[in-house]
């Protein structure tokens, strides 16, 4: 199940023929593993090895929709003489990422013991801005002042050099306009509303396999045709080596399985010389945090959420009897 035998046969290849990994039996697959390729302040890239598509997809879905974060959810408007109407500003405020390293200490508002709002399920902020002495004024996330000690504040982005970036612009006020609001942040997840999703991007793909029979291609095609073959790939997977006058694989990772090269090969009676497929046991993830949590934290939390679900399933099933029937 986990081996190369299961490779997508859409490309029409006998799977056993390729694969840098040896064909593993349904039972003897290697240990599941995560290998981090890149890790920066906001982005993590990793490989998920020796698992099934269902595991990879569950992880992806949980990262997007079920990792809880904090976000502004209720806006009480006391004064708004700006050009923008209340609902519009409320919506913008909701989308502001709030640092959520401490989400765990909060309850979901509908699961909290309190009747409406308490310190266990909400964080209060104040947004007060008056443009009195200038023609125009920007209201940004720095104007959002916490009313409690809870360490939930709008994310302060930092660039690659460690320098703080400008805060997020919420709106502009012109002279004599003012804004006075109370904001309430609550815990939630991306399933309820996308503003609670901790990620900007979470994508996963199967690693492509590109193999060419260099001898055959460089023997059976003339130089013009070889150059044509290299040029026809939209992702520049192949390169033309000017010294050897030969086609080489430059970047198999970029392949998007468009099969242009296969069609070309078939038209030139070289069906067996080009092989394109995807590995079924290796997934490359790119997770881009919105800054509310560190990227590795998001992945780790997602795994733990899945674990909790499975633990619950396992324990709940025990009441139906292990030895039934």
């Amino acid at each position: 199940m986990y081996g190369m035998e299961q490779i997508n046969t859409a490309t029409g290849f006998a799977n056993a023929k390729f694969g840098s990994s040896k064909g593993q039996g349904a039972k003897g697959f290697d240990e599941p593993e995560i290998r981090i390729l890149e890790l920066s302040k906001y982005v993590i890239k990793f490989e998920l090895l020796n698992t099934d598509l269902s595991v990879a997809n569950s992880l992806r879905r949980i990262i997007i929709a079920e990792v809880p974060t904090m976000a502004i959810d209720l806006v009480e408007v006391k004064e708004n003489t700006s050009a923008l109407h209340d609902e519009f500003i409320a919506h913008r405020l909701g989308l502001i990422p709030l640092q959520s390293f401490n989400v765990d200490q909060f309850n979901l508002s509908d699961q909290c013991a309190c009747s409406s709002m308490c310190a266990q399920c909400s964080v209060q902020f104040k947004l007060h801005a008056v443009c009195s002495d200038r023609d125009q004024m920007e209201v940004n996330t720095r104007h959002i002042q916490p009313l409690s000690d809870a360490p939930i504040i709008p994310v302060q982005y930092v660039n690659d050099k460690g320098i703080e970036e400008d805060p997020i612009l919420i709106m502009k006020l012109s002279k004599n306009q003012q804004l006075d609001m109370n904001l309430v942040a609550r815990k939630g997840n991306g399933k309820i509303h996308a503003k609670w999703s901790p990620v900007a991007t979470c994508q996963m793909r199967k690693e492509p396999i590109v193999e060419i029979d260099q001898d055959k291609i460089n023997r059976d095609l003339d130089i013009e045709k070889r150059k044509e073959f290299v040029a026809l790939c939209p992702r520049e997977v192949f390169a033309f080596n000017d010294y050897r006058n030969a086609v080489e694989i430059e970047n198999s990772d970029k392949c998007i399985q468009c099969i242009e090269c296969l069609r070309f090969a078939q038209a030139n009676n070289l069906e067996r010389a080009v092989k394109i497929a995807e590995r079924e046991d290796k997934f490359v993830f790119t997770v881009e945090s919105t800054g509310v949590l560190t990227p590795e934290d998001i992945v780790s939390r997602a795994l733990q959420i899945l674990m909790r679900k499975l633990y619950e399933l396992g324990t709940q099933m025990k009441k139906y009897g292990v030895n039934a029937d």
Partner: protein
Amino acid sequence: MDNTKMNDNGLIDINEEDMDSREKPKVTYICGGCGKDNKLDKDSVIRCTHCGHRIFYKKRERKLLQYEAR
């Protein structure tokens, strides 16, 4: 208010003289130029007494409004 009487339709009859002596209802607006409050009645010129600006804004409803940020 003593000289007001109910007519047959249940409405209050007001004489012409009464109309003039009555204080006209005034509404407070905010000047778009200087931001100061102006009290206007239905006949007054739309012009700020402080700065001469001709655009006014309605005052906000006094009650607290709540919105879901979604």
